[in-house]
């Protein structure tokens, strides 16, 4: 029987995250997904950047690496290329992954290295106190947009696809069971897989934007999304302002470490390279 404890560093609990923060819901979904996939804990490397989301790896019992702000995908690329047997999962925030880390993001998508990147989109910089993120919707309050967000925001999934990602999906914390399934599929995908999770920061973003208590915010997610395979059921008016969930794009392409291995097989020579 599945028990979370199996995958937890219990000594680190309770979680540092605020009351009602969606990060815990995603954490649990990830653990259930890994359990379903029956991957050995020793074979998982989880790499994160800095931010509330970035704290996740500290709580779970894998090979965990909490790097610098914006850089987890670059660290993960090193981990994966150097030891392709590892399942590498990157945990990043919308600031970490799309603001300071945007370049590593598009290049990881392009390179198609077999890393699963899970982006926690809470529309804000939680850890540092509610500054504007590249995902903050127009008009919303942020501590550095005190008159309301003035910049258009990214659609992370579109960006990932245009950059070349071979698996792109979106889930929500509210649909946590569906999320678990998406995580399973993302990890199974051979190549770079990107999964954006819509989550809530009730403590700062929610409070300052008067979005109600954690449960209100969670329930409100329902009305923001449409599963892409059900878009036919909606009129264009109904679809306006909604975002699609589930797998949004998938294509087959040779994975990067596999391609590199082919190169090695082709050019490898004997010896230790002395005096070359």
């Amino acid at each position, binding site marked *: 029987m599945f028990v979370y404890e199996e995958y937890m560093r219990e000594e680190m609990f309770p979680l*540092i*995250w*605020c009351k009602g923060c969606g990060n815990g819901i995603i954490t649990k979904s990830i653990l259930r997904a890994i359990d379903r996939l029956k991957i050995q804990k020793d074979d998982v490397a989880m790499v994160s950047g*800095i931010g*509330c989301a970035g*704290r996740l790896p500290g709580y779970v019992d894998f090979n965990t690496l909490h790097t610098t702000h914006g850089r987890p995908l670059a660290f993960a690329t090193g981990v994966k290329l150097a030891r392709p047997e590892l399942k590498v999962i990157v945990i990043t925030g919308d600031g970490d992954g799309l603001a300071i880390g945007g370049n590593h993001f598009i290049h990881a998508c392009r390179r198609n290295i077999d890393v699963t990147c899970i982006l926690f989109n809470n529309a804000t910089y*939680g*850890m*540092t*106190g*509610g500054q504007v993120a590249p995902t903050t919707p127009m008009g919303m309050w942020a501590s550095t947009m005190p008159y309301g967000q003035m910049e258009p925001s990214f659609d992370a999934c579109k960006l990932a696809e245009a950059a070349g990602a071979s698996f792109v999906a979106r889930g929500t914390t509210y649909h946590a069971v569906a999320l678990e399934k998406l995580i399973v599929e993302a990890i199974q995908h051979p190549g770079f897989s990107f999964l954006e999770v819509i989550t809530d920061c009730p*403590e*700062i973003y929610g409070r300052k934007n008067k979005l109600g208590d954690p449960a209100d915010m969670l329930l409100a997610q329902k009305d923001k999304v449409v599963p892409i395979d059900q878009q036919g059921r909606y009129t264009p008016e109904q679809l306006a302002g909604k975002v699609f969930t589930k797998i949004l794009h998938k294509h087959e392409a040779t994975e990067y470490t596999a391609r590199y291995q082919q190169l090695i097989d082709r050019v490898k020579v004997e010896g230790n390279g002395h005096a070359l």
Partner: protein
Amino acid sequence: MRYEARLSGEGGQGLILAGVILAEAVGIYDGKNVTQSQSYGPESRGGKSKSEVIISDDEIDYPKATRVDLLLSLTQESCNEYVKDLKEEGHLIVDATYVPSIPPGSFQVYQVPMIQIAREEIGKEIVANIVALGVITEISGIVTREAIKKAVLARVPKGTEALNTRALEA
């Protein structure tokens, strides 16, 4: 004379603002030397939070509390951690609901259900910090009621003045 007050709890309880208000009350409205400083938990939200106000007749060099005259704690964790610097005979003010166990020591303990008062009497848990300021004013005598009231009103958002005045006097 140097008087050290430490306000502790967790991020989001408004203790830093409370410290600032207390400092402004003492400094601007009561006209003494005062410094206020603070520290947080990881990065800047959530976690432990601590705000310190030093009041003195002389110039204040070191703005951190070392021998605390008054400790306010809204969480058990912060109470346990910060009580060690409390002077003998110092004042310990704790939230009666959230700090069930009082650490041993020879200080004067005041258990006030500040968060409950804020929630139930004022209707907004978030003004617990202002309720606490009221309590501190009464117990410490370090600041006048006048001054604290002016300082609160100068700092809180427009439209919440009445709410906050009620909280202060709760």
